[in-house]
């Protein structure tokens, strides 16, 4: 049973991959754009979840890494660097930035941490507006023109896939277990030897990597960004809302949330423009009231998720290693 289920699961995943890979060649050009944006938001939501869900620190400033990645890539592309070198530099810069800010930020907890990280976005935004020679100021920055839709589509899917693998292995690792323990009770975790300061910083650095990469790919594709487009409220809040709507601290949650919100947005977009902004607020309130665990933890969805073997980290054990021990 278990093996057959695994086979079925693999088959569905492979099928999905095949469809996604074939999409640009089937003439669904709008679908490609749509999936591209979905994957960008999904990657942000999933990488946010390493700190926000696994570790329980609500990092409202996650989009700072996205913006940093985007600006670094744009500036380096304009200097004539190749895309991969630029992306690598973006990754490195965001990681160093994450490591540096983690020290003061993780002295705070709860709402104070969330607010401080939120302030981080404005800090970097102000920097980009004022460093006019480097970033083009409030007018934004353009990169060498060209149609990169299809390659950037594949790239962003690869990063999204890589983030899923990363998130999967973090959740099952000793490191991940330590992050969960920090979420549950940081003081006790510390008393039992978990190196909390180091791990919190490490988690932030890890979560910054995918965000900075998609930022770079995003600007390569769009060829233009402004401080408002990468440091705006939309890009800061929607990944977090996706993660919370789907379910935080569980890998499948951000995926469900991202697909759900982008689908709903798609319908609202054409009928009532700008309504999606009001919707975010409404959705947040409704999540808090009716499904604090997110969609994947509601009564009807949970069994399906568990059957697929995508449940809580706790459930992984149930189906995994422990049973084999005498």
């Amino acid at each position, binding site marked *: 049973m278990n093996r057959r289920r695994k086979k079925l699961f693999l088959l569905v995943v492979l099928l999905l991959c095949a469809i996604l890979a074939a999409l640009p060649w089937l003439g669904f050009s709008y679908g490609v754009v749509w999936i591209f944006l979905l994957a960008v938001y999904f990657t942000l939501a999933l990488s946010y979840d390493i700190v926000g869900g696994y570790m329980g620190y609500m990092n409202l400033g996650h989009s700072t890494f996205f913006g940093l990645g985007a600006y670094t890539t744009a500036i380096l592309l304009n200097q004539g660097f190749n895309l991969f070198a630029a992306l690598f530099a973006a990754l490195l810069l965001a990681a160093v930035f994450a490591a540096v800010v983690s020290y003061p930020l993780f002295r705070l907890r709860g709402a104070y941490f969330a607010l401080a990280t939120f302030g981080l976005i404005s800090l970097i935004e102000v920097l980009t507006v004022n460093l006019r020679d480097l970033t083009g100021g409030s007018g934004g920055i353009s990169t060498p023109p060209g149609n990169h839709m299809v390659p950037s589509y594949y790239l962003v899917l690869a990063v999204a896939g890589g983030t899923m693998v990363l998130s999967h292995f973090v959740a099952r690792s*000793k490191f991940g277990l*330590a992050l969960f323990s920090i979420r549950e009770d940081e003081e006790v975790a*510390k*008393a*039992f*030897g978990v190196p909390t300061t180091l791990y919190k910083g490490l988690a932030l650095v890890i979560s910054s990597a995918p965000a900075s990469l998609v930022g770079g790919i995003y600007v390569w594709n769009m060829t233009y960004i402004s401080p408002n487009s990468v440091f705006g409220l939309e890009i800061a809040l929607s990944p977090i809302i996706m993660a919370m709507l789907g379910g935080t601290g569980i890998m499948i949650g951000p995926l469900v949330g991202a697909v759900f919100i982008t689908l709903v947005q798609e319908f609202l977009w054409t009928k009532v423009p700008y309504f999606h902004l009001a919707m975010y607020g409404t959705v947040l309130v409704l999540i808090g009231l009716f499904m604090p665990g997110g969609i994947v933890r509601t009564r009807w969805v949970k069994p399906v998720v568990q059957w697929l073997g995508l449940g809580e980290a706790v459930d992984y054990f149930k189906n995994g290693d422990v049973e084999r021990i005498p």
Partner: protein
Amino acid sequence: MRPFFECREISKTFGGIEALTHVDLKVEPNTITGVIGPNGAGKTTLFNIISGALLPTAGEVIFKGKKISGMGPARVCRLGIARTYQLVRPFNSLSAIENVLIGLGFGRARPMAKRDRLAEALRILRMVGLENKMNHVAEGLTLVEKKHLEIARALATAPELLLLDEVVSGLNPTEVTRIIETIQQIRKSGITIIMIEHILKVVMALCERVVVLNYGVQIAAGTPEEVVRNEAVIEAYIGRFEDTEERPDA
């Protein structure tokens, strides 16, 4: 010979309040020492200082010849002092076995090989009688199970000294018997125990030595039999009859 564990002249003040004043405590290896005293006597503060969660205002804690006060809780834990909490604090969303794995993976001076960790975690859960609940989320366990889980998590760090903070409070008589058995078993395995306890029956049954605190001051120490007959102790617990109005030092 150097003592196994010693608190020397520990004092702790919170603002103007003296929670502990010059408390001395010596513990021989392989014994159970009870710390008793009325509410607010400073018992848990003493535990917080021993486990490194708080710094003493004055005095020092010596463990196997090393000064451990000021080291921080993580290092104290790795040196071999583990604790439980008065109000249970397991990692709620984690399963029982994962709770134990945290202790195994992080609380030891030399972490175990990955391969052996699960087997060891199971062995410890079996010792406290939770092997059937290993995949249950800690939040869903009953109070007595949570207390056993806390003991298991502490044992996972391979402690030489175990601090038990009121493990018996809130349990019914059957559960009390069960947890007393667990404690005796732990002691047999060569682990020294200091326990805070209110219930005298438990103290009498388990402890070789009892230390009594009142308002942060050690007012008595000795065998349980000596201590329960000590007048200062009786006064601290139930007061004295005739002096309510004309106590000279009040």
